[in-house]
């Protein structure tokens, strides 16, 4: 806990130093200069409103992309003949520019929430799939043989044999996943939504107001630090207990 605090303080100090060297508050303001705009945005309720809209989108897209990506990655990793068929599609969708997918979604589904979430999800699924597929390919064949001979139930195999082995891959995909999703949500928001952190960041970027850009960016980062500390790390600790016991 105290290491965390110190580490964040160090980051703040680093920022301070860089801002002090840059000495151009319009390009990089000092940390303390964010207080008053932060307070103003908080008081007006703007910050929480936009943050909540973005969070809802992130949560939806994350849940969808992780579950679909996990399923697809497992299937492709476990069944090489399925993989051979789907692999080129995966490469194509993996490398399709976010912009193209987002625009196509907006054009077909309309400028609405569904389109936004689908666009993000489609953007992220291939990412999760590639990582999970690698995990599925490196599962222990001896354990597989064991479950087979003992005719363990599929559901139980998934839950107790496969997923625990995939845990590091899932953790990696989830962590880098939320980050990528949130970055895509930003693009989705500035291209076709009327609210959300991405919308605000783009607005203030157009107005060249670095302070407010940072206020909005950091507000999401704060949420992510909390998610990391309150959800992800405790979960990981529990899942990895057997390694350190």
């Amino acid at each position, binding site marked *: 806990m105290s290491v965390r605090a110190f580490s964040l303080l160090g980051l703040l100090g680093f920022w301070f130093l860089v801002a002090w060297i840059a000495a151009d508050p319009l390009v990089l303001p000092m940390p303390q200069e964010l207080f008053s705009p932060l307070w103003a945005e908080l008081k007006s309720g703007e910050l929480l409103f936009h943050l909540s809209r973005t969070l809802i989108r992130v949560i939806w897209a994350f849940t969808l992309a992780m579950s679909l990506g996990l399923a697809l990655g497992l299937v492709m990793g476990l069944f090489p003949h399925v993989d051979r068929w789907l692999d080129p599609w995966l490469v194509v969708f993996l490398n399709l520019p976010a912009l193209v997918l987002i625009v196509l979604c907006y054009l077909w589904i309309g400028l609405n929430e569904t389109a936004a979430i689908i666009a993000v999800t489609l953007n992220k699924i291939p990412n999760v799939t590639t990582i999970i597929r690698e995990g599925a390919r490196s599962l222990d064949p001896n354990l597989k*043989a064991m479950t087979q001979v003992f005719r*363990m139930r599929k559901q139980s195999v998934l839950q107790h044999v496969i997923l625990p082995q995939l845990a590091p891959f899932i953790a990696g995909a989830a962590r880098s996943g939320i980050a990528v999703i949130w970055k895509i949500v930003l693009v989705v928001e500035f291209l076709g939504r009327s609210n959300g952190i991405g919308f605000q960041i783009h607005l203030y970027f157009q107005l060249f107001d670095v302070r407010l850009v940072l206020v909005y960016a950091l507000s999401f980062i704060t949420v992510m630090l909390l998610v990391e500390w309150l959800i992800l790390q405790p979960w990981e600790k529990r899942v990895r207990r*057997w390694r350190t016991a």
Partner: protein
Amino acid sequence: MISVDVRSKSYGDVPVLQDIQFDVEQGQTVAILGPSGIGKSTLLRLIAGIDPKFEGTVSRPKNMAIVFQEPTLLLWRSVFDNIQLIHPELSESAVREALSEVGLADKADLFPGQLSLGQQRRLSLARGFAGNPDLLIMDEPFVSLDEKTADEMLTLTERLISKTQPATIFVTHDTTEAARLATQILTLDGQPATLKIKETLK
């Protein structure tokens, strides 16, 4: 009844097994002997249906249990769960009973990685015995155990066999072990390995 008819099994171009045929009745126990690297584990994998890439046929029952040469445990689940998850039909007390039979009663809540190798092997044995299998396959089940523990495990095995009457096939390097448990001893030899001696005891 288990009937094994392996006409040939190769890894790549290298033939490992050839013309191995034998049957095992319920309640019968077959010991397989042979030098290291001859193909005993390979044969067991064919019998268990883990490796389908061979010429020949094996008829086997559905309800099987296997004790691998290495423990092959779920390292991320407790010792207790390593039995319970594989045999969900067992009650909690039955699982604890199975653990105490192999001397692991006080280790139920540890992870397998916290056991000594001998303890892990006993856990693997307990897992094999727990389901009252119709076919029990064991690959050198009693190594890494001191004499006393090994003897206990042998006694346990005898009890299981006499109680649930499975067909049992096991690999060992120890002829006294083989003599004690087996109704039939098969010895593999040659390259590719064939059944050299087929000795029926008892």
